[in-house]
């Protein structure tokens, strides 16, 4: 069934279809509609889940940890400062190997106080052991929620799906709501292998000495590595059941591209238009959309960029003292590759500043005109 819905509500429907069992949440602009609709679904008996109103995002994640430890399918949503507040618990969820799913609406961190879109909030959590998926449109958002539970429950790591503030969260697009029966086929109920159970008691999250801690961490990294193929398979199976999928990365018109733009999230949608225009003008330019950011899809990225003569990464985020984070990660992925094209890192659109087709065209033209980047990162459209 098709509905015209905002990105936030696409998350809500996804969570409903995935039959989440516990939702613990705290409101924050611009995610609140996600949990608001979910609370209404619970109240109206349209979703058989326990909705827990908590007093902070830290508690939201703590409650999800508790619920997931008891074997329940748990979900929460947040953004920006809320995500920052639950930082400690993000580490916990991954360390405890809990398949919690969370939607993060990318919003800039203050001060200066901002409600508009920027990717730094989620990317700053890239070390926590959570999988991360960046969504381009509302259909992808809904679909990724469902895929997220499947992947999480298979590899026993928490999964974060990310959508841009307002550009997606509050923008209405036509979305196909899949049939519940098909979702149930694709995503069976969660059966925890280990959980809090008085009939089979275990203590979870105990102290682990230096004698064993490293092996626990090694297991997490192994799970992350398995997650690459698990995510790929989940995406392919999704296509078999629902007729659409997205890949871990998506190459767009890369076949003979000399210059490759690398984007994520909604900038990708705009960039597609610009690529088409430039192609019409005869430029050999292509686009690589990075959808899965954690685990980092090394093989897919290296393969996609193997033929590129120049790479231009567009970051709507910044790691101060280093550079745009997608640029950092791709540079490091290419370091040991035989093909190491010059990589331009562009920083643009922070704090929700609009990234227009003209902005992207400007980035492409800069890349055409320079043999190599002159600075570690190139800030675009800063008023100077």
């Amino acid at each position: 069934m098709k509905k015209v819905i905002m990105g936030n509500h696409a998350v809500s429907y996804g969570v409903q279809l995935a039959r989440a069992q516990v939702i613990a949440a705290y409101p924050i602009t611009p995610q609140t509609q996600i949990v608001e609709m979910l609370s209404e679904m619970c109240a109206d008996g349209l979703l058989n889940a326990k909705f827990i109103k908590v007093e902070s995002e830290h508690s939201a994640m703590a409650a999800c940890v508790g619920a997931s430890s008891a074997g329940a399918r748990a979900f929460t949503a947040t953004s920006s400062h809320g995500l920052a507040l639950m930082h400690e618990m993000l580490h916990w969820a991954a360390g405890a190997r809990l398949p919690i799913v969370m939607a993060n609406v990318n919003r800039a961190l203050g001060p200066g106080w901002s409600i508009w879109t920027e990717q730094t909030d989620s990317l700053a959590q890239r070390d926590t052991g959570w999988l991360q998926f960046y969504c381009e449109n509302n259909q992808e958002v809904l679909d990724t929620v469902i895929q997220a539970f499947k992947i999480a429950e298979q590899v026993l790591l928490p999964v974060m799906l990310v959508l841009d503030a307002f550009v997606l969260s509050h923008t209405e697009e036509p979305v196909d709501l899949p049939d519940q029966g098909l979702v149930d086929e694709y995503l069976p109920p969660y059966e925890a292998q280990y959980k809090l159970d008085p009939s089979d008691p275990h203590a979870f999250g105990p102290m682990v000495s230096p004698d064993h801690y490293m092996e626990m961490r090694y297991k997490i990294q192994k799970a992350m590595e398995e997650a690459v193929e698990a995510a790929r398979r989940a995406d392919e199976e999704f296509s078999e059941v629902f007729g659409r999928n997205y890949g871990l990365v998506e190459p767009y018109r890369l076949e003979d591209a000399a210059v490759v733009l690398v984007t994520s999230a909604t900038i990708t949608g705009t960039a597609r238009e610009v690529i088409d225009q430039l192609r019409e003008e005869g430029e050999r330019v292509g686009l690589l959309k990075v959808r899965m950011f954690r685990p980092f899809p090394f093989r897919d990225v290296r393969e996609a960029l193997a033929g590129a003569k120049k790479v231009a990464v567009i970051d709507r985020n910044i790691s101060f003292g280093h550079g745009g984070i997608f640029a950092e990660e791709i540079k490091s992925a290419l370091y040991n590759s035989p093909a190491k094209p010059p990589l331009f890192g562009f920083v643009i659109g922070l704090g929700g500043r609009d990234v227009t087709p003209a902005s992207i065209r400007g980035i492409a033209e800069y890349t055409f005109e320079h043999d190599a980047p002159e600075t570690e990162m190139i800030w675009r459209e800063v008023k100077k």
Partner: protein
Amino acid sequence: MTEEITFETEADMPPLPMSLGTTLVNKTGSWRYIRPLYVDKTSPCNHACPAGEDIVEQIGLMAEGRFEEAWRRLMEENPLPGVCGRICPHVCERECNRKEMGGAIAIHLLEQFLAHYGASHEISLPKPEARRQGRVAIVGAGACGLSAAYFLVRLGYRVTLFEAQDEPGGRMCLVRGNRLPKEVLKHEIAQITALGMEVRTGMLLGANLALKDLEGFDAVLLALGHTRSRKTAIEAVGLTGPDVELEFLKSGWGLKLDEKGLAVTDEAACTGREGVFAAGEMVLGAGPVSRAVGSGKRTALAIDKYLKGVPLEGFPPLDGNIQAKPRKVDPTVVHFKDINTAYFEWLEPPPKPETGIFGEETAKMEAERCFSCGTCNLCDTCFIFCPDVAISRVDHRGYEVNYDYCKGCGVCAEECPRHAISMERE
């Protein structure tokens, strides 16, 4: 008890940090430097009751609807509850900690309820066997003498109760009927005398009752009452003049009197003359009927020891109270600040009953308002709170701390609503 689990490789280990064996192997009790102990303490009502009732225990039973057991516990300490419930000035209620959170428990009304319960259900006390050697004479059948007679007969002695008036009861008979209905008084006196004792009325010491008549007994208790009582008794038999009975005793038995004209005894009610005891208002001066009951009880317990040839030790000072069936209780009195008020709501006592006696439901509800100061009532709070699961319930009797695991955190003592747990240094 358990073997240590070892892991060779990463593959051996569980996928996430979790215990595989039992955590019992970690005896966290070794961390402790203070330990919790279940120590019942004295409730202020118990402390104040001149009759030495175990009020908190009685009320605890009533709160569970166990009225007959409550009545029996009451009768173990006070044979005149219907009287006391009506005419004692109930100091217990003045001391009740509940007064800080809605109002003192209506202890006197609960006492009236229990007395009525026993009477209306015709619960009878077992008739004791006179199995002990020893005949005791009690002179004066007021509240003190009757109380002493009750306890002595229950202990197995043969008692002869002498009374100057035509009927036993002493000053209790003078209370107006609207304060103390005659049938209540009659019933309670009968309940005592029916246990089996010789009651000889119309016997005035110094008139038709001579000291010689008392010398055949193995112990004598003088419970002649207050001057007013004695005056009434004397006038009742047509005599006048100064205190005939006391003069009689001073000259005949060397009874010592203080400057107020009160008989002098030690804590075991001994007058100084071998086998002669004195109790009640003739020793303590004018006071509430409950105190006379308590004094009679003390003296009965002293006479019991005397007749067994056991030293007369361990009696509290004359202004303290005594139990016939003492519970193991720390003498520390619980005050309101010791109560964990987080466990209680502000609740007011019920309105005074129209008929004068609570119905069963109201009595139970009122009993439930009691904090049970210092007295464990199996509320399970410690059991629920112990973070080490080191407290377990022992059937219906109480709790046990497993000191192998108790870390001495003190949460149980802190949370105990009624201050029944003490923390002590290891």
